[in-house]
């Protein structure tokens, strides 16, 4: 983990480098990510729900932009994201419907990609917990089946990097969690 933080380009500030991303598999169909942010949760909430802010960080890795970001933040409202790759104009879009919104604590929404690379809708639950001015954001994605979740995990979202035993440790931890179910 530490190696990854070191090699990352932008926010390698001492402050944020400590905040480690944890990936776990709470159940057969779920994938959860937990991350602490050095900001109050109302601010984190805004950064995740205001289009002009979402466009600044979500999926806009090198070479990618997010030309479309529409958010109708109400139960039954929809959201729509489109990313574009600069060099060849390749676009990738996704959408979903908000199922539950409790500001600034929880957002539940469906997610489905325009060109689905996994079967069925997935259900995303985001929780915001603030303690001492820091916010713990937990995103749990529930897929249609275990096979789908496993397929998502090995999708080519970004070019892979070399094997790391730190990751292996987490991999093992999540496997154990899964087996005790």
């Amino acid at each position, binding site marked *: 983990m530490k190696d*990854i*933080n070191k090699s*990352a*380009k*932008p*926010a*390698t*500030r001492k*402050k*944020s480098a400590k*905040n480690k*991303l944890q*990936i776990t598999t709470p159940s057969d169909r779920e994938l959860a*990510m937990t*991350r602490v*942010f*050095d*900001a109050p949760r109302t*601010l*984190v909430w*805004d*950064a995740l729900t205001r289009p002009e*802010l979402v466009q*600044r*960080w*979500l*999926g*806009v*890795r090198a070479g990618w932009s997010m030309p479309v970001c529409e958010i109708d933040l109400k139960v039954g409202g929809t959201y729509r994201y489109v990313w574009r790759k600069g060099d060849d104009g390749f676009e990738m879009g996704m959408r979903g419907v908000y199922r539950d919104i409790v500001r600034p604590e929880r957002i539940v929404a469906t997610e489905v990609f325009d060109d689905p690379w996994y079967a069925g809708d997935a259900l995303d639950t985001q929780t915001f917990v603030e303690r001492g001015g820091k916010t713990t954001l937990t995103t749990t994605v529930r897929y249609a089946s275990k*096979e789908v979740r*496993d*397929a*998502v*995990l*090995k*999708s*080519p*979202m*970004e*070019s*892979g*990097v070399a*094997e*790391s035993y730190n*990751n*292996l440790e*987490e*991999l*093992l931890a999540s*496997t*154990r969690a*899964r*087996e005790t179910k």
Partner: protein
Amino acid sequence: MAPGRLDATFAALADPTRRAILARLASGEASVTELAEPFKMSQPAISKHLKVLERAGLVSRGRDAQRRPRRRAAKPLAEATKWLERYRKYWEGNYQRLDALLEELQARPKKRQRAKR
């Protein structure tokens, strides 16, 4: 790698003895007898673990017909780690950009306050 194969990999890696066997094999091939020694386990018990590791493609058998040494196959382990790594990299990147944005947002109102004074 097919999902079924991944499952076999994870199931194989979930056991501490099997992970220890893999760690031992990382430093070179070993026979069942040699593997049984440090683990204070019977050869049949070790053989059972080896079977699970072999099924997952994590361990293969060497040429020597008499000793039948086992050796570690690195590929499935690297693949299993790689796909998780991709996902992690993608989200690490997202969250680092979010860190920078949050910092900027928090700096903004302070500036305004200062400007007012």
